[in-house]
């Protein structure tokens, strides 16, 4: 083996080891944050109480607070975070630009507009809202895809058309908010800014089922997705069926995003932040789906706790992540344009 080949092989092994370590640390952090958010609250419960409740034993007091209030909330935070993180990084990788996250290119806007419409105009709640949001988000995503189709889809055209659709959907959102009565308005705005207050098993279980079905499909596409990041021509030359992979990735990512949005509202910027943060942590050129999902879960968990307890007013998690996201976005815009758009 030549010296260069050995260097390359050593470097690759070192990066792979680094990635495994970081993914492990992230997973441990998610579990720790999840567990901590079960313990902390108005009343503090020790680890032993929490473990007993999670195992299904009855502990006076703790059974209700931890089992019925905190456990669904923390679990919903983890699930939506995972979904937003995966969905976001899929779009960012596929469109080869960290700014092309579903928040920016109209996918999340489609789900929010439909969700608000269902809440305010149709007067729906619970699972029906989710169903409407999911269907509408998929419809919007496919519409963007079809409109961007002209001898195949160019990523930049997809992004531009998505931005146009988002601008139109924002008008729809404004219109729905004007139609709302004062009473509905607060509820609609709370959902719209992304929060976990309505967390219950009726939201957690369907999301869990959908994720168990869809996430493996997306994860199986991970390798091809990374090749798409090299550009359509290179990917095609390396044997990737470009259009089929892209469509499959879009549909699975949109289903994940839409289900999470329906359950917790559009939690701002989690999809946008998770990918770049994960890329920073695990280093360039490594598969990002899993680390990005973990970063997303961590963001939602921590953001929710901060919003609940850090201020004298209780803020929804989306406001916290939005406030975190805005400056990071500015930084990212400046950096990515200077380096030519690498994630």
């Amino acid at each position: 083996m030549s010296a260069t080949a050995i260097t390359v092989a050593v470097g690759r092994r070192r990066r792979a080891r680094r990635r495994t370590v970081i993914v492990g640390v992230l997973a441990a952090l998610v579990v720790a944050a999840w567990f901590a958010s079960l313990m902390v609250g108005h009343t503090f419960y020790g680890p032993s109480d929490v473990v007993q409740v999670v195992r299904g034993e009855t502990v006076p007091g703790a059974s209700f607070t931890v089992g019925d209030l905190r456990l669904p909330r923390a679990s919903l935070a983890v699930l939506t975070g995972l979904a937003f993180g995966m969905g976001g990084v899929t779009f960012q990788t596929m469109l080869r630009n960290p700014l092309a996250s579903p928040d920016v290119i109209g996918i999340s806007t489609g789900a929010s507009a439909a969700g608000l419409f269902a809440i305010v105009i149709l007067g729906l709640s619970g699972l029906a809202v989710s169903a409407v949001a999911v269907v509408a988000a998929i419809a919007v995503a496919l519409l963007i895809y079809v409109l961007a189709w002209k001898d195949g889809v160019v990523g930049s055209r997809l992004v531009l058309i998505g931005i146009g659709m988002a601008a139109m959907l924002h008008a729809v959102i404004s219109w729905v908010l004007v139609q709302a009565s004062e009473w509905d308005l607060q509820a609609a705005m709370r959902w719209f800014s992304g929060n976990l207050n309505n967390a219950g098993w009726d939201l957690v279980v369907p999301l869990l089922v959908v994720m168990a079905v869809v996430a493996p499909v997306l994860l199986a596409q991970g390798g091809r997705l990374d090749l798409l990041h090299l550009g359509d021509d290179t990917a095609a030359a390396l044997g990737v069926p470009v259009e089929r992979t892209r469509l499959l990735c879009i549909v699975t990512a949109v289903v994940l995003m839409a289900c999470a949005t329906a359950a917790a509202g559009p939690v701002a910027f989690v999809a946008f932040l998770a990918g770049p943060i994960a890329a920073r942590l695990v280093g360039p050129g490594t598969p990002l789906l899993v680390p990005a999902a973990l970063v997303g879960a961590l963001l939602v968990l921590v953001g929710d706790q901060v919003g609940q307890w850090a201020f004298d007013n209780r803020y929804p998690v989306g406001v916290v992540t939005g406030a975190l996201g805005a400056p990071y976005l500015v930084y990212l815009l400046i950096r990515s344009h200077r380096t030519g758009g690498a994630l």
Partner: protein
Amino acid sequence: MSATVLGTPPAAAATRHRAAYRSAWLLLALLVVALAALASVAVGVAVVGWDDVVRGLSGDDATLGAAAVAKRVPRTVLALLVGGALGLSGAVMQGVTRNPLADPAILGITNGASLAVVSGIAFFGLASPTSYVWVAIGGAAATAVFVYAVGSMGRGGATPLKLALAGAATAAASSSLVSAVLLPRLDVMTQFRFWQVGGVGGAGWDRIGMMLPFLGVGTVVCLASARGLNSLALGDDVAAGLGEHVARTRLVAGVAAVVLCGAATATAGPIAFVGLMVPHACRLLVGVDHRWLLPASFVVGGGLLTLADVVGRVVARPEEVEVGIVTALIGAPVFVWIVRRTRVRAL
């Protein structure tokens, strides 16, 4: 002596022919705008006859119909002015950035104005629409500078895609800050959502008088920079070679465009896509010369917004759909069409 020397040189004849052709289009546009304005005072939730329209316009509001017509006059004037301001500011922005997708809403400038207005209402107790104007113009200007600075970094300068992405990202950031400010304050939320939706309903002469100075200054400066924009269209190097102060022209025209769209946004809320569609339509009619394009964009913009307002009043009787919704629904397909026509480079 040859005929070409005696007669008109062919080039001059062609120029004059084009000028006649453009004037015809401009006159036709003015006629359509006049008809739109007439429709706007005549059509609405209350159905009125022609004699009521005549009576209302001559200042007599004795009958109910005539009173309704008199109420619709300021609204129509406001729609004409706001639409004109948005059309003109879109045309100038497209010229300044040399970018077919420049539009106050796509570039996130209206969202910046929203954020400024919301912060003003919530933290500084703004209540009068006059103070909205200054705050909205300030917010719009800051956002415009930011988006343009960010979008023009890196290789290739300010490409349509980079500007649009910078604008959309900034819009997302400011709208999430808007909801952070609004959520704990129900009273502000109630006040804000009616502004946010973008409408000219309920307009009075005071609202018009308030935006008029900004509109006048912005329009004059924009129209005066037409020649400079023509030079900019040739590219910065050629423009500089022709003796144009590239940076100064860009700055003056850009500031005037921001003042126009900030004033329009402060009076009527964020209205999307007018600034995008109108210049493209006008380019098809009068060509790319900014000395024709800018006045045409003003006229057509006013007409478009007035017509959209009429449509919004008619489609959902007895309810009204705000004009911002109507323009968004008309504008998005046009945007898609422009994007599909433009050759976009891969990212």
